């Protein structure tokens, strides 16, 4: 747990970047600091590993005031990922990843073995280990940055706009990778971004900040979307809050009919029982269809699957993509009505 207690940062020129910030970052979850540029996110983040020292207030790391810890020692126990990766250009990838283990005095062989393991973990080919940073793409460098931060297995990870400089496709895959890693590692992660969609996708908790370093609202993403605290948060969240909130309602609550169709339509399957299209009664051709995973997907995905298909119904599949049933428009309507009535953590 990381606790901010009335933390203020005033820079030498008088700028108050963070003003009397109090919040808690829970252990083992992702907390996102989000807000417009210049609102004090980076300053807040960097106060945690003492890259910047607070002017007033205090920050506790598991009940210990971080000012009592010598900064380099503190930082070796906290993973740190920045926007431009900041890899050491003169070192091979494997040695970049092993930076902190080397600092902690691990022997070279063990540190390198650990680095190789981490490269795999973050989804990189271990063939890249012998390359230098300039020989990697931006997305690959960013993954190495994450591997480096994780090398000594720190309980806390600080990430400052780590995916902002890569293109949207790579960014999405890096985000997915982070969520996958986090499901295995359960780190305490503080993630800074100016992108509200990224915040909502990644955060277990989202802290919305406004310029001047004021905390506007801190809540779970679904709560934020359903009940923004004020006009600023509402404006920052942007359009389509209702639809986006459906992402946090599990599809598993839907009423599924195990019939292989709806009146006038049937679901065509291949030999592996995977859906291949909708067939109108009496017709030969196949029509577009959409599927959702009954166990893993959200109501939003299910709704989307229905909107894609001419019969207006969604096809439910199991984890292997095999047909599991059909969700009619009526069943969807009922679920949407319930979702609208119960604001909250979904």
């Amino acid at each position, binding site marked *: 747990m990381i606790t901010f207690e009335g933390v203020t940062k005033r820079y030498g020129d008088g700028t108050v970047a963070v003003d009397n910030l109090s919040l808690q970052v829970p252990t083992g979850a992702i907390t996102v600091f989000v807000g417009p540029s210049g609102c004090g996110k980076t300053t807040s983040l960097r106060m945690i*590993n003492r*890259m910047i020292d607070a002017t007033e207030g205090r920050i506790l790391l598991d009940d210990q005031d971080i000012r009592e810890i010598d900064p*380099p*020692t*503190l*930082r*070796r*126990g906290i993973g*740190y990922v*920045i*926007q*431009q*990766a*900041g*890899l*050491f*250009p*003169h*070192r*091979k990838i494997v040695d970049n990843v092993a*930076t*902190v283990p080397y*600092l902690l005095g691990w022997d070279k062989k063990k540190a390198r073995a650990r680095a190789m393991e981490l490269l795999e973990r973050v989804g990189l080919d271990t*063939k890249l280990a*012998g*390359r*230098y*940073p*300039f*020989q990697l793409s931006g997305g690959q460098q960013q993954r190495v940055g994450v591997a*480096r931060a994780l090398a000594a297995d720190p309980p806390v990870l600080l990430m400052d706009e780590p995916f902002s400089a890569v293109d949207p496709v790579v960014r999405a895959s890096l985000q997915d990778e982070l969520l996958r890693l986090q499901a295995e590692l359960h780190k305490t992660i503080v993630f800074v971004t100016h992108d509200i969609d990224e915040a909502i996708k990644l955060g277990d908790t989202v802290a919305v900040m406004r310029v001047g370093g004021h905390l506007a609202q801190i809540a779970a993403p679904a709560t934020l979307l359903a009940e923004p605290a004020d006009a600023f948060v509402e404006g920052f969240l942007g359009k389509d809050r209702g639809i986006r909130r459906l992402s946090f309602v599990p599809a598993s609550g839907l009423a599924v009919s195990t019939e292989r169709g709806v009146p006038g339509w049937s679901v065509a399957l291949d030999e592996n029982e995977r859906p291949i299209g909708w067939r109108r009664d009496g017709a030969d051709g196949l029509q577009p269809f959409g599927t959702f995973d009954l166990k893993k997907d959200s109501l939003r995905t299910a709704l989307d699957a229905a909107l894609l298909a001419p019969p207006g119904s969604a096809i439910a599949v199991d984890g292997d993509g095999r047909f599991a049933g059909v969700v009619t428009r009526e069943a969807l309507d009922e679920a949407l009505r319930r979702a609208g009535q119960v604001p909250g953590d979904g």
Partner: protein
Amino acid sequence: MNWLVDFFGNRANWSGSGGIPIRLLEHVEFSLAALLLAMVIAIPLGLLIGHTRRGAVLVVVTANAARALPTLGLVVLIVLLAGVGTTWPVLLPLVALAIPPILVNTYEGIRGVDEDLRDAAYGMGLRGRQVLLRVLVPVALPLILLGLRIAAIQVVATATVAAYVGLGGLGRYIIDGLATKDFPSTIGGAVLVAALALVVQLAFSLLQRVLVSPGVSRRARVR
């Protein structure tokens, strides 16, 4: 061309205390001494100022002074003041000549390292000295070596003045040749100095290849 043949073809020029090998050795020794002395002063200073970013004024002043400094004039002045025949009066201006390029390039190299990289180094938990020696120096090395190369070539060229004060070196051929109107000797001496400068240039290219990480010079092949 004939003059060169006259000079290099003359057996007498290859042996004894006035022979080319000895003169060359004197020249190299002298230049090396000046360069090493300058390095010992300028490199730590450049590293310190570049790393702490304190005292940058000193670098600017040194660089400007260097531009205004007439080396030969300085040599003559010091020789007049100190009397002919000892090493220091000639060594000192050579050192003074070598310091600015080393100091300025070391400083600029260290100071110019990408801010994000410094930040990442501190963020990983490296201490100040580790950041300097393990990150900034390897990354700034091409510039540091460039400063050394410029200094070395200037020193080698200027060390010909050592001959003025009886300290030998390749300058002897030039000065003695001028005095006795022995043009083959003058030209031969000049060619030797130029050749030595070329060797220095080559040596630094080699050093660059050996010392600078392929990741910094971007020489590495994709594997």
